[in-house]
């Protein structure tokens, strides 16, 4: 083995060079990166993000590109894990992208922020709602999704408005759900809703009967669940099975049609959640077009709103390139100062000085007896 070591090493280095030389050609096209969890636990979200953006990019290229230049989408899989996010980010930076859309998880985004920042690449996160992402002072960081504190505020306000007095808060110890639960908890201290239970279930578990039995014993009149739809659906279903009628209210991560498929319409009926409007409820013309294109290409609809927000991020990036050319810092400036009420898929889009999205996006939904999500 030893005597082959040198040649192998040289060959490996050469292969390395050759392999990467392919992506080294810089040319006219506008390169936009997409960092998304294409594999791993959030693969469905990531794959939807890629699909939506590919549809939008196709439309732009069919219409002659942006300022005459074609748009090239570079996808990097972050696996939904912070460890691999760094590599995905380096990959995109190396590919010479001017801006990046993504990603879904907050901790994953966080692990990539400093890399994009140091490389001068503009980043628009699409599902990362953790507050501190925009508090870190990165000039080129934006997001099209709202923040946990806004959602927490809306959620807590709705719980009060619906007349509930004793709330059991359940999260799942992901940074998203914990953040939301903490926000809601803080507001309950001031708005007269009593917190009677606060604990975390384990995501991926399927049996929550033990947790539900314990929650029930605390006698809440509403269960506030801040986690994701697979667990929310099981909670609803098992709550029904134990003949416990207390209503449940959740956050935007439960805005997924699979919730009703899993729980069944009967158990899901009466469930409330706050969320940006789903693609189906987006009145914009662009949204209708996306619905049709997605249906034609992949069948069905994107299962959640996050991939649509990724589409929005992609669209505003294209607008920025159109306005000031593919220069990340000029684009960042433009997005903060010039972009006013752009008609995005999910409604008007503008950013504040921190890169957070302006305006109210949350709506209250309720599941009706047929299992449809009804905007209240």
């Amino acid at each position: 083995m030893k005597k082959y070591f040198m040649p192998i090493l040289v060959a490996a280095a050469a292969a390395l060079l050759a392999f990467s030389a392919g992506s080294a050609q810089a040319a006219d096209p506008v390169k936009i990166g997409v960092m998304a969890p294409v594999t791993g636990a959030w693969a469905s979200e990531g794959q939807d993000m890629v699909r939506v953006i590919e549809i939008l990019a196709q439309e732009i290229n069919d219409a002659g590109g942006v300022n005459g230049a074609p748009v090239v989408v570079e996808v990097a899989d972050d696996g939904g894990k912070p460890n691999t996010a760094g590599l995905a980010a380096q990959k995109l930076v190396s590919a010479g992208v001017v801006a990046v859309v993504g990603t879904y998880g907050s901790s994953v985004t966080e692990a990539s922020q400093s890399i994009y920042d140091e490389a001068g690449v503009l980043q628009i996160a699409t599902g990362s709602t953790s507050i501190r992402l925009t508090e870190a002072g990165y000039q080129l960081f934006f997001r099209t999704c709202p923040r946990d504190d806004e959602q927490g505020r809306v959620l807590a306000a709705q719980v009060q408005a619906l007349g509930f007095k004793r709330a059991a808060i359940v999260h799942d110890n992901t940074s998203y759900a914990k953040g939301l639960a903490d926000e809601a908890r803080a507001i309950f201290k001031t708005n007269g809703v009593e917190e009677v239970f606060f604990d975390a279930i384990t995501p991926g578990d399927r049996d929550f009967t033990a947790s539900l039995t314990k929650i029930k014993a605390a006698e809440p009149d509403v269960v506030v669940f801040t986690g994701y739809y697979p667990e929310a659906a099981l909670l609803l279903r098992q709550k029904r099975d134990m003949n416990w009628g207390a209503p449940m209210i959740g956050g935007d991560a439960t805005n997924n049609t699979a919730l009703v498929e899993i729980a069944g319409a009967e158990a899901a009926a009466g469930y409330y959640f706050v969320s940006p409007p789903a693609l189906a409820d987006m009145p914009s013309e662009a949204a209708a077009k996306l619905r049709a294109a997605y249906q034609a290409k992949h069948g069905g609809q994107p299962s959640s709103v996050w991939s649509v927000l990724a589409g929005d991020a992609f669209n505003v990036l294209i607008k920025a390139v159109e306005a000031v050319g593919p220069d990340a810092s000029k684009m960042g400036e433009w997005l903060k100062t010039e972009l006013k009420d752009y008609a995005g898929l999910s409604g008007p889009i503008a950013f504040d000085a921190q890169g957070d999205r302006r305006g109210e996006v949350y709506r209250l939904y309720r599941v009706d007896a047929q299992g449809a999500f009804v905007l209240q």
Partner: protein
Amino acid sequence: MEFFIQQLTNGLAVGGIYALIALGYTMVYGVMKLINFAHGELFALGAYVGYSLLVTFDLAGALGPAAAIGLTIVMVLGLVGLAGHLLERAAYRPLRHSDRLAAVVSALGASIFLQNAIMLKWGARHRAYGADLLPNVTVHFAGQSYPLIRLLVFLAAVLVMTALYAFIHRTRLGLAIRAAAIDQGAAKLMGIDVRSVIAVVFVIGPALGGLAGLLVGLYYGQIDFSMGQLYGLKAFTAAIIGGIGNIPGAMVGGLLLGLVEALGAAYVSVAWKDALAFVVLIMILVVRPTGLLPERVAEKL
């Protein structure tokens, strides 16, 4: 008290499922001394095969619920058993005479492969069995009400365990399996075809895992491609608690693990229940280094 009893039954229901998956681990381990890390994925495969039959092909619509579920059980047992057999031939048989850890890594590779194969075949989204597949019947017993399916799942676990135990101890093939478990070399000398024994074990174990997957799908109604990881780890823990290689041990371990989780969630903290389960595991092993029902060589399986 009512709270306690309720939690007790909660724990037993979860434990029954752990036990059922653990049976597959323990059987394979008994004969091959191999931790089949892909067992969790075979469990998930069972859930997805059931999904295809019951939801995509809507067997229940064609045959009526009882016949559909009966047929699905048979198909899941057969198909996942076949998958297990193929897995053994492809990933484990070439390594039978190699180092044990080589087989462990091969199993880990097979597990990654299978999990991603399931994702590519059925998609990354969570799949729903549909809530109206089974009639929603509740049984009242001692002042509590239980969903019927929950009792059935538990009953199935006990039934399978008993049948397996009887099979191992009352049939000639079972005798061969026990012999191979104790000493493959000696079993060969006694004219036992150890290779076929292993093949049989590698059909039964995965098939039982697949059955557990189907039951989880029916019971909870929700499946996803990575579900095998969590259940696999839990069931492995259960098998070890009971003493791996020991069939009643798998049952005891599974039920105990379920109880620890439920009572831990009830009386300590929901968020810490899994950590608590591992603490209990460690304490048991510190006191009894080979599990609760340790392998007595003469009655290994």
